């Protein structure tokens, strides 16, 4: 770790920016608590996944170049999402020809970029947080974080250190919730079937709170839980780790 406080650029993600700024502020708090200086570059918009996953390479590349430029000069780039983190770490380099300047820059950004919980544990070597949050919780692994970035124990370890949180594992915590970006609106029936299975596993744990690290999955699962009238509260992992109990859960009234 460098002597001076690490300079971290926060990649907010488009969903946190638009739907749930409280996640962004929770991330900032967690980063500042471990001694980072946090900045939020103005020029960021989205990581470009909607274009990339729709086969639109040109736009994905243009957006990637924008992100690369916006985050030049930071020691680290931290993302409160495994999916957007995976996009930057795994997919940006694939968007450019090997050996090109863009490829080099994409690799340079990829090496500095981390999902929030893995940054705290792997880079900042933190294994506990000072927070209180009453919750009988279960954790859903979102696919990209798990399979592209290998994040599994990191959020669980940190959550276990939060005073008041008890964690119980659901069956198939690592199986997709059916979000999949545009998938969930292009094939809503399949998505819903996947969601139904996920809900059964969540409910079987007896948890009162569902936690995950990606806004897309969280909105999908919260939307379904509320549609069927479930009382289970849905939270982003950053909010729980930051002890932000005051903000209403996702899709709940103020």
């Amino acid at each position: 770790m460098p002597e001076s406080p690490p300079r971290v650029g926060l990649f907010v993600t488009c969903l946190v920016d638009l739907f749930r700024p409280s996640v962004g502020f929770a991330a900032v708090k967690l980063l500042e608590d471990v001694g980072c200086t946090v900045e939020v570059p103005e020029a960021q918009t989205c990581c470009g996944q909607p274009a990339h996953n729709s086969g639109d390479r040109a736009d994905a590349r243009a957006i990637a170049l924008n992100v690369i430029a916006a985050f030049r000069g930071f020691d680290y780039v931290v993302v409160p999402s495994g999916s957007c983190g995976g996009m930057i770490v795994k997919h940006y380099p694939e968007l450019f020809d090997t050996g090109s300047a863009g490829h080099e820059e994409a690799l340079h950004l990829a090496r500095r970029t981390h999902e929030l919980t893995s940054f705290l544990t792997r880079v900042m070597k933190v294994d506990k947080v000072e927070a209180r949050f009453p919750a009988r919780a279960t954790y859903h692994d979102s696919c990209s974080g798990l399979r592209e970035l290998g994040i599994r124990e990191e959020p669980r370890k940190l959550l276990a250190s939060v005073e008041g949180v008890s964690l119980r594992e659901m069956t198939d915590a690592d199986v997709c919730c059916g979000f999949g970006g545009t998938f969930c609106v292009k094939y809503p029936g399949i998505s819903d079937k996947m969601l139904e299975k996920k809900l059964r596993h969540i409910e079987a744990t007896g948890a009162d709170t569902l936690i995950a690290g990606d806004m897309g999955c969280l909105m999908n699962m919260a939307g379904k839980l509320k549609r069927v009238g479930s009382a289970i509260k849905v939270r982003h992992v950053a909010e729980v780790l930051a002890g932000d109990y005051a903000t209403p859960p996702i899709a709940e009234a103020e």
Partner: protein
Amino acid sequence: MTEMSTTAFKDNVAKALADDQLQFAMTETGPRFIAKRTKAREALPEFDQLRDQARGIKDHVLDHLDIYLERYEAKVKETGGHVHWAETPDEARAAVLEICRKANAKMVTKGKSMISEEIDLNRHLEENGITPVETDLGEYIIQLRNERPSHIIAPAVHLTRGQVEADFRRVHTHLDPGRDLSEIPSLVEEARGVLRRKYLTADVGITGANFLIAETGSSIIVTNEGNGDLTQTLPKVHIVLASIEKLVPTLEDATTILRVLARSATGQEFSNYTTFSTGGRRPGDPDGPAEYHVILLDNGRANVLGTEFQDMLRCIRCGACLNHCPVYNAVGGHAYGWVYPGPIGSVVTPALVGIEKARHLPNASTFCGRCEEVCPMRIPIPKMLRHWREKEFERHLQPTTMRWGLGLWAWVAKRPKLYRRATALAARVLANQAHGKGRLKKAPLASGWTEFRDFPAPQGKTFHRLWKERRS
């Protein structure tokens, strides 16, 4: 039923989701396969190393496929067998028919073969007065129902026991109507009894091949019921149907891949029967067919070599990616509309029938990555699905509304200042519409979402706006 309906994917899906029997059958089997594979994998510490080796073997073959095909053909000839090259399904069907005619065949027994499905062989044989009899239990069942397999290794996985019982009672009218078929073993026994008589009367036996060995000219099939052995040894003529990518250089290479195949497929260390065939019966052999033929099908595969899709040809059809796919488990194999279902089907089908006809398949994925995680041949399936979406995008095959919507979004996303204003407005409007309830029952342009879910409302201001306020 055997028609291709990849274009009707959405209708197929709707039907599958509403089919209670199918849904019941799928919830029963998926988890069983997964648990067995996990156990087999955990019992073999070098599993992942074997996967790397297996990948290396196939990559090497694919890079030198022409050489190995030539070697293989020469060896088959040396051992007294015949090789028939078929570029298209038409040519493959014609070759099979000609061999059957020469043998004066009235009936052929068949081991499980996906290539037979790919070339729609049964229909062709029937149209030409030859009766095909499937001897793999699953294939036998779906033949009775005039259906396609819904899974690469478990063709009847979409059916419940009760459905199979009903089919057997419908077809096996020579048996006592009062018999007990309430347990699966009794169904297996009954099918065996019916089939036993067919093996002996068949004139030709047709099997697939899990591997073709260049070094020896052998073909290998892997089965659990032993039906393949009877199919290929009892009739006078044995026809092997295989596609060109089934080749491996040596017997040792095949053994390496076999070690990951059964574990990935059924969680067995080895399948019950691994059967090698090399040429026909030689003087002094106690049994075996008089003639041995191999039909080598290309059907578009050679065109895939050297492209971004080449890795799909490493597939050994173990079915692990299907078993682990949440989309496959939600809709079953028939929804995919053609021969190869599941994740690998969604990569292979567009290559064989054209992306124009199969554009839904690569789109119906969340890119969850579980297929790639379990594939013994380490095929990067999500990456290839994305490549198909790129082709689709290049050729303007997506629906116009989607294309425009995406184009507009990207145009704004490339302009941070404009993007800030647009998102600030959207956050405010949606938050207002939610009237403090935190969610919406309906949202503009989001009917696909709100059909099944509430739409979580924004908190009101964007992060960037609040961050600015906090700084100033």
